[in-house]
């Protein structure tokens, strides 16, 4: 795998160099010192709708080739951020550059660099599967001599070759999603924006999609994705930000976030819903942190088994007990709370 990755990197660097050389004022210009080459930089990025700040002064930079995730509950400002990066929504204030360009000033130029997978599929349902790719490629002024073989290649990539002549109507949800991803790749973008790419898909379809996204990452494509599936973020993202109410709550790699905001393991105990609430006092001092939920008690500890032994030693008999590794979900819930967001 590393071999493949290294084999794939040179063209991506070359193409970015080409891209940046033609623009003297590029913020993401490559430097001889080997400093990271940022394809996206946001400083104090803000979007207001009337009095409501959907995105409230967030800053981040994404180097080329990284898989960067935006995590957050509904209404956190993820999609709004994605729209601003995608050059389809104007920011209220702050700075934003994509490949060194301001999307508010150079919308078409910025969008020409991107592949976009929106939250809702917006395929041309009346056109055939392959025609969807051809038509979309035309928006980039690509000639048919390129588009026809490219469409076939992408259909292969999206495992839709058999469906090339079907109408989009006839595809399953997972197929439509894969076609949307194939469509977003028609212009060979170096940056791919994916807004909740696997929401609503069954596990098989999700795993196929993840596999395809991995391959793109191996080819050096920068992935920017939003998701509220924590396993997806852990699988795909090199680095992520947790966003809540338009602000960044935390930033880092999945592993570093778990280290920072959670313990290595979590012990889950169920004493029955009556007893869960009262047992807290008796568990005091076990592990590093205790969280009482209506259905279970969570003990955050470095060593879950040891914590469980301590629970037994105190003479407590939970109905069920489970020791598991801490996950990004623990971090997410700790940072954004457990109350429902509508």
């Amino acid at each position, binding site marked *: 795998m590393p071999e493949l990755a290294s084999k794939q990197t040179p063209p991506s660097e070359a193409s970015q160099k080409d*891209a940046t050389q033609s623009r003297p004022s590029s913020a993401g210009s490559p430097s001889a010192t080997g400093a990271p080459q940022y394809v996206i930089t946001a400083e104090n990025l803000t979007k207001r709708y009337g009095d409501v700040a959907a995105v409230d002064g967030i800053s981040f930079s994404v180097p080329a080739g990284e898989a960067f995730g935006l995590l957050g509950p509904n209404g956190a400002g993820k999609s709004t951020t994605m729209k601003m990066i995608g050059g389809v929504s104007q920011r209220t204030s702050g700075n934003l550059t994509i490949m060194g360009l301001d999307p508010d000033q150079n919308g078409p130029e910025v969008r020409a660099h991107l592949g976009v997978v929106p939250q809702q599929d917006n395929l*041309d349902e009346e056109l055939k599967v392959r025609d969807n790719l051809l038509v979309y490629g035309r928006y980039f*002024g690509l000639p048919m001599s390129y588009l026809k073989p490219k469409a076939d290649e992408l259909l292969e990539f999206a495992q839709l070759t058999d469906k090339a002549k079907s109408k989009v109507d006839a595809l399953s949800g997972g197929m439509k999603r894969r076609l949307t991803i194939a469509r977003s790749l028609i212009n*060979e973008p170096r940056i791919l924006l994916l807004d909740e790419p696997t929401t609503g898909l069954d596990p098989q379809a999700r795993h196929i999609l993840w596999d395809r996204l991995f391959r793109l990452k191996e080819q050096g494509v920068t992935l920017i994705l939003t998701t509220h599936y924590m396993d997806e973020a852990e699988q795909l993202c090199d680095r992520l930000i947790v966003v809540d109410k338009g602000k960044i709550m935390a930033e880092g790699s999945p592993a570093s976030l778990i280290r920072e905001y959670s313990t290595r393991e979590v012990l889950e105990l169920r004493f029955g819903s009556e007893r869960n609430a009262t047992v807290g006092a008796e568990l005091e001092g076990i592990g590093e942190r205790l969280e009482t939920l209506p259905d279970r008690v969570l003990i955050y500890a470095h060593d879950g088994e040891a914590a469980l032994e301590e629970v037994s030693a105190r003479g407590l008999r939970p109905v069920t007990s489970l020791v598991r590794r801490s996950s990004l979900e623990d971090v997410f819930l700790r940072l954004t709370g457990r109350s429902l967001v509508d």
Partner: protein
Amino acid sequence: MTKKAELTKKAELTHSIPAGTTAVPALRAHSPEVSAAKARKWGAFYYAEQVLRVMKGYGWTIVMYGVGQPVAYLFAMGVGLATLVDTNSTAAFGGVSYLVFIAPALLISAAVMTAANEFTFPVMDGFKWRRVYYGPHASPLTPEQIALGQIIAVTVRLLLQSAIYFGVVALFGASPSPWGWASVLVATLAGLSFGLPLMAYAASIKEDKGQFAMVMRFIVMPLFLFSGTFFPLDTLPLAVRWIGWISPIWHGTELGRVLSYGYEEPPLLTIAHVVFLLALCVVGWVLTKRQFVKRMGG
């Protein structure tokens, strides 16, 4: 050993797909800079191409509508009804047969009705139902180009449909003047002058409450009936004659009559028809552009 070789081969196969094969020259898209420059220049036509491809899906319907409607109307009105009408003096119709009198009106009305359909439901589909505008919106195209592309595509349809319609009219011998063909252009202009303001309205609708059905019933139908279509406008009482004056169908029809049988009217009035239709197009386009930018830009 063989298994290993097999695995390697399999790995090569799977990896060769995204990487491109070695024998064929690698498939490369032109640079984003080229994409953006091309889209800035030709974007509206790129989107028009998409709309026309979708229309091709119901191309047969378009042709049948183009042929079937004039045949039916010309038979029913121009031949059937005309046998009664023509027993009276043709003076009221400027000395021509009833068939010749109504043919331009039917041609113009058909274009306006097509425009009324093409500039309402597809726009709602673009913004709301299937959100088709948001695909190209993420590409280098601008909202303005998407709107213009749709207009270009509908213009093509109007030209094609009106040409077929006129062909049928000519076969019925209902366009004696050598300038009759130009009424195809007038029909297209009339369609746009009615369709563009309607497109602006359609683009402003956030929720579908059956507004378009109301437009068809309470705007398109009355205009069709009271625009000097089946009888000269001045036979109507003054109280309802204004419907004709504000109607693109009336202005278009009067122009069509001038062209197809040399209907006589003051030259100033002829100019007024053209100006009125063009003005509606301009106002409609400005409002449409504003709505599209507002809806897809914010």
